[in-house]
């Protein structure tokens, strides 16, 4: 399974990982900083004057200051209650672009 522990039933005193359902304040701050870093990369490419379709798509993404907190710290999930789950539960979430969610969720 994942991590250093092998999965075993909790009832048989197996090992249990605890993952908080929400991000802590410092973790949120780091997430905002990562979003700003990506904004800077896109801005640098835009200032180079090069034109390409991936830049058009990247500029259509919302910037960190335009994003509501819900989009910064949660992500759409069809199976969750409320159709949202913590963004930290997405594997490799610190290295993926997860800014946009389906409209209305």
């Amino acid at each position, binding site marked *: 399974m994942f991590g250093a522990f092998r999965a075993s039933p909790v009832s048989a005193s197996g090992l249990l990982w605890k993952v908080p359902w929400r991000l802590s304040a410092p973790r949120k701050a780091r997430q905002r*900083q*990562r979003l*700003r*870093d*990506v*904004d*800077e*990369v*896109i*801005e*640098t*490419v835009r*200032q*180079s*004057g*090069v*034109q*390409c*379709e*991936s*830049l058009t*798509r*990247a500029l259509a993404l919302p910037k*960190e*200051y335009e994003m509501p907190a819900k989009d910064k710290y949660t992500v759409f999930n069809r199976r969750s209650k409320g159709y949202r789950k913590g963004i930290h539960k997405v*594997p*490799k979430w*610190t*290295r*993926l*672009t997860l800014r946009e969610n389906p409209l209305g969720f």
Partner: protein
Amino acid sequence: MASMILPRRLSALQTRASLVRSMATTSATPGSSSAGASSSSAAPSTLTGESEPLTHFKITLRRSAIGLPDRYKATLESLGIWRRMQTVFMPHSPEAAGKILRVKELVEVQNVPASLVRTKAEQRQDRKAPRGYAVVDRMLS
């Protein structure tokens, strides 16, 4: 009212981001320390005061692609990056821009003029500390 607040927040965030950028520069080229510290948002008027056209991307890998799909690894390989913190220079082109944007979460980019472009050997040379002496004469041979 919200639109009045946003521009002030934007400038504060940009300032903080440019501070982070100036602290995070890796290339220790002596001549380019100030150019490296210049934020991307101030690219046309660099701190060195030069009016050279910015013709190259200076790309540094900050986060690895371990555990990510092969397309990210292949993009980094096509950029010429093999390890984390490696710096690579690429001239401005739509192909280079597309590659950077594909790995935009992993990479740090700056626009630099052609005079600051360094090969791998030149970057290594720039990292070396100057010797505290100079050889004036040799007794032998």
